[in-house]
């Protein structure tokens, strides 16, 4: 069965190997340049005070080159899209094709049980899916290591996509989450194939469901996996304060970075009073200054005890969140696999 699984998978394996090789070559060619930029930036061995500034400078340099931001985006896109591609092109046709062509009647009347047939197909192809995704992730992580280092230290940046390791695409592309996504996408593809028994509809359904899950989880589940931390800080400790001013003294503040923890994940931020409650209206005394949103206005607010309150996940929770999210995806993958075994045991005629 191992041989047959390999033989049926051969063409897809070759395509994957070619894509992986192209990916690796592209990143290998541009990697050393990035590394030398980093070495020249002086970030390694910097003192805690100057690190933030050096990091920001480095990142701006990188952003200014024409190739590196593009390759970075391409690399991240590759890792993020790989699970979807695998789910659609490896997972969906795996069993659906056998139903469409009627070859399941040939396969299930050889001398192996249906359970063994499915286990080998699912297991070997699934392992290949995990391996390819992990390879892409590792290559990209190796290439982007300098950028990642700088991102942890930078206090501001105009590098595309934001730099926190928690930022949407970075979180999805690094660590162990890609493995979870690959496992889930693959088993989702196989399950839709088992359910619909036709490859093309299964591919479409896999795409729709996987996309929906990949949007829903970071949006609604990931922020709440662990109770967030809260902190407040003076208005002046933030160098980049996003301000919105409305009529009648209404206003709102937002920040992108915690000065004390540049890599933290900001879930929400806003102006709070001394008691810690959200403030959305300027105190009467400061209203007249609001129109200019000048430093005098912020000083006025500060003198009334208004500070910035931030709800965030600290960088120390990175691996905990990674691990928990991956565990969720793996659990989903196992549940789907279990469903496939159960469903195929019912011996239906298509």
């Amino acid at each position, binding site marked *: *069965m191992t*041989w*047959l699984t390999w*033989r*049926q998978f051969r*063409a897809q394996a070759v395509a994957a190997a070619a894509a992986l090789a192209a990916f690796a070559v592209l990143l290998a060619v541009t990697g050393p340049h990035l590394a030398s930029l980093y070495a020249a930036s002086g970030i390694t061995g910097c003192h805690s005070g100057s690190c933030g500034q050096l990091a920001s400078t480095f990142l701006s340099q990188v952003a200014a080159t024409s190739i590196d931001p593009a390759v970075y985006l391409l690399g991240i896109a590759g890792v993020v899209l790989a699970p979807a591609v695998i789910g659609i092109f490896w997972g969906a046709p795996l069993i659906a094709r056998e139903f469409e*062509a*009627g*070859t*399941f*009647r*040939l396969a*299930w*009347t*050889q*001398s*192996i*049980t*249906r359970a063994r047939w499915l286990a080998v197909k699912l297991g070997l192809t699934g392992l290949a899916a995990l391996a390819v995704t992990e390879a892409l992730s590792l290559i990209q992580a190796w290439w982007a290591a300098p950028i990642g280092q700088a991102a942890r230290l930078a206090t501001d940046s105009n590098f595309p996509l934001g730099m926190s390791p928690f930022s949407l695409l970075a979180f999805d592309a690094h660590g162990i989450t890609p493995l979870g996504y690959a496992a889930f996408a693959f088993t989702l593809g196989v399950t839709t194939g088992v359910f619909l028994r036709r490859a093309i509809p299964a591919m479409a359904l896999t795409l729709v469901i996987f996309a929906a899950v990949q949007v829903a989880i970071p949006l609604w589940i990931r922020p709440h996996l662990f109770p967030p931390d809260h902190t407040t800080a003076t208005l002046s400790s933030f160098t980049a304060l996003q301000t919105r001013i409305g009529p009648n003294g209404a206003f709102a503040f937002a920040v992108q970075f915690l000065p004390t923890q540049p890599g933290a994940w900001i879930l929400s931020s806003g102006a709070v009073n001394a008691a810690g409650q959200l403030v959305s209206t300027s105190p009467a005394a400061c209203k007249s200054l609001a129109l200019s949103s000048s430093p005098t206005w912020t000083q006025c607010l500060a003198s009334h005890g208004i500070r910035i309150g931030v709800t965030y996940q600290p960088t120390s929770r990175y691996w905990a969140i990674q691990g928990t999210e991956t565990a969720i995806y793996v659990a989903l993958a196992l549940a789907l696999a279990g469903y496939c075994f159960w469903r195929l045991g*019912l*011996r*239906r*005629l298509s």
Partner: protein
Amino acid sequence: MTAVLEARGLGKRYRRLWALADCTLSIPAGHVVGLVGPNGAGKTTLLNLAAGLLAPTTGTIEVLGGPPPASPVQLARVGFLAQDAPVYAGLPVADHLRLGAHLNPAWDEELARGRIDRLDLDPGQKAGKLSGGQRAQLALTLAVAKRPELLLLDEPVASLDPLARREFLQDLMEAVAEQGLSVVLSSHLVADLERVCDYLIVLVGSRVRVAGPVEELLATHHLLSGPRRDPATLPAGQQVISASHTDRQTTLLVRTSDKVLDPAWMVSEVGLEDLVLAYMSQAAGRSRRNHLEVQK
């Protein structure tokens, strides 16, 4: 002699429709069994149940002593050739043989290679490019080379031209002679089965109408023709399968184990094709009657 296939009250339903109903059979070993009936009668359903590709809705089925597919051991003892001989289109002939070798412990490589050579199949050719007859032969090779005790074939010659059909049956009979196989093969044409079958099952409208050794069936079915008469007046031992009347004459096809002694009848033998047609028309007549009754 143990039965290769034993069914008791076997039934299979899809949503509202019974594809097979109330099927009770006991097929002895060592025969080539013909399963004949019109399209949609339930032949494919019965064979797929026997191969373990379907689960029964009611009743039981046992193949070679156990419900299919009980275990790899039992799977190895039964060979199956599905309708239209499905093969992996992208895999060449030689890789199909490797498939057989890897997935069947009792695989006979010499037998498989010999058949492929004799059939003049190119081992390097992709199976999707083979003709219908060649695909059927490849699928038969796969089924036979695993050295089963029972071979189930679902309409194996339906889409083959006459030459391919003859060659397929020649090959099949040779394998039966050589390996002592029991075979169940289905067809909607009696002519396909007449030469090779020595046991017949007639399946019409999802039910078994008659089953038994061909010799016995031919010996116990007779065509009676004589003056016009009501079939109900016949003695109890004579079961009327089909009847047709003109003003003056009645022709009946009856089943009886006794000799027909009434001198009014001219008794003649029945060919297998006419026998099957009589059961098919009997089933059709009954269902037509039911249809009319419902309409009232």
